[in-house]
């Protein structure tokens, strides 16, 4: 009995192997067996997307292990530069001292839009780039000056080292310094919570964190929607990057290709608050 069962098992295994081999031959791209280990580290904003990709990728190729961990964009870029991980996830471009040196190759994954939000008691609906710059540099300090009610403006935003803050500084303030007369929170979620609670407060969050507890402002008359980002009407966004040391090869290449595949992007990118790259 024992041996016969074993023989049956072996037969079934052999059969299924043949089936897999036949099945594998048909789709054009994944003919070769994909196996190995992929490690990724860095941006906590990008982490959920890469984790989702890792899970799907492992289901598709059981011989592959994908390990993704957070730690921050700069950590991710440093780790990939020194070869500790295969992929460095980042919300920002390479800093000057890492550029060129380690032949890091950038794959832009998707767009991460930012939304200007205020407390719900703010009556102003739209701010131009000039008005917003005046607020964030500390020149405009009362909503009255912008057609709102007589109420001081309270800026609540991110720390100087934050990638979000760097993006707003580059895209909205055109490189000018933020006023330091502002409260600083350590994460998107805490910025949103603080703004929701503080009358007259203004700040910015990743689009993924936008909810009904705060009010989203139009920027230069354009409302934030994924469509407006794709069509180029809404300009406040940054790219999410995957950095590899040299062109990705082998299993790492397969994984990056999987993340970039239209099927994966369409299913997961909008769900996590990102916007797919323009078509």
């Amino acid at each position: 009995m024992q041996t016969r069962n074993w023989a049956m098992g072996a037969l079934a295994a052999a059969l299924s192997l043949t089936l897999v081999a036949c099945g594998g031959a048909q789709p054009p791209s994944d003919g070769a067996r994909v196996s190995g280990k992929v490690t990724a580290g860095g941006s906590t904003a990008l982490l959920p997307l890469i984790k989702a990709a890792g899970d799907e990728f492992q289901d598709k190729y059981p011989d592959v292990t994908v390990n993704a961990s957070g730690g921050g964009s700069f950590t991710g870029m440093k780790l990939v530069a020194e070869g500790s991980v295969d992929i460095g996830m980042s919300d920002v471009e390479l800093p000057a001292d890492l550029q060129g040196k380690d032949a890091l190759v950038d794959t832009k994954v998707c767009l991460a839009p930012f939304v200007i939000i205020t407390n719900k008691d703010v009556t102003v609906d739209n701010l131009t780039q000039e008005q917003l710059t005046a607020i964030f540099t500390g020149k405009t300090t009362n909503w009255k000056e912008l057609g709102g009610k007589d109420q001081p403006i309270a800026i609540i935003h991110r720390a100087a080292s934050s990638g979000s803050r760097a993006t707003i500084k580059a895209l909205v303030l055109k490189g000018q310094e933020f006023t330091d007369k502002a409260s600083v929170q350590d994460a998107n979620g805490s910025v949103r919570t603080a703004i929701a609670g503080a009358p007259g407060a203004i700040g910015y969050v990743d689009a993924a964190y936008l909810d009904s507890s705060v009010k989203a402002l139009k920027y230069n008359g354009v409302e934030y929607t994924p469509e407006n980002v794709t069509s180029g009407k809404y300009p406040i966004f940054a790219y999410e990057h995957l950095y590899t040391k040299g062109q990705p090869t082998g299993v790492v290449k397969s994984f990056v290709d999987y993340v970039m595949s239209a099927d994966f992007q369409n299913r997961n990118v909008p769900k996590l608050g990102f916007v797919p790259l323009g078509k």
Partner: protein
Amino acid sequence: MALRYAAGPSGAGSARHRRALRWDRYNYYLFVFSAAAVGAVVLAILLFVGIRGLAVFRAVSPLTFFFSALWQPPAHLGVGAFIVGTFGVTLLALLLGAPLGVAGAIFLAKVSPPWARSLLRPAIDLLAGIPSVVYGWIGLTIFVPLIRRLPGGQSGFSLLAAGAILGIMILPTVIGIATDALLAVPVALEEGALALGATRWQTIWGVLLPAARPGVLTAVVLGMARAIGETMAVQMVIGNTPRLATSLLAPTTSLTSGIVMDMGNTQFGTPWNDALFMMAFLLLVVSMLLILLVRWVGRRATV
């Protein structure tokens, strides 16, 4: 064990004896190693943080670093606002927490009936066991909105919110140590005062407190050390605005929250990151000084 074998007869006993001695020696090495390891860890932390921190002075002069309140990294690294903020919240915490704590200790040690003491002591120990994030959260949901409603209150994130939370957080430290100090005062002193006709208040104020002063001071200094190093609760309610507070109700920042806000996003080896290490080193030095102060106060107590 070794002694018993030593007194025993020779032969099998002496072999066992030698084994026991060897065992003894191994244990001795283990203890020495453990002690050395603790020392080495402390030294390594000091050296690492110190060396990284001192590296910041290649980019900025110590004078600018410590005395300028302009924090615009990476161009301008001045941590004056952080230092003032840390000492500001600590002072505020002591103003609120120390009198309350010492009064609580007097109640626990000398006034309270035994049943109340058996109820209060565990409650205060529990206060010490509450994680700081819980204190911070309470501050964020109760103190911050309250302060927002005060006249002149801005976003509610403020020096006052942080100081008030810290004032509560140092209570268990202050009460615990001050109670022990008061209980350690010889009963004869108290009885003598009472026998001379002093009232209960006069006894406490004129005899008990002066006699327990070194212990009470130790309690306050340790409370101060607790307040200076607290990170999470402060970071959640202080507003993290890197400028000097213009009033109690204005947001500001502290050394600990300054480190935690930027440490994850600044690259190791850059002046900005080194500045954070220097802030950490400053905190280390201040807490070491406080510990030395406690030892000095304690030594004077025994004289």
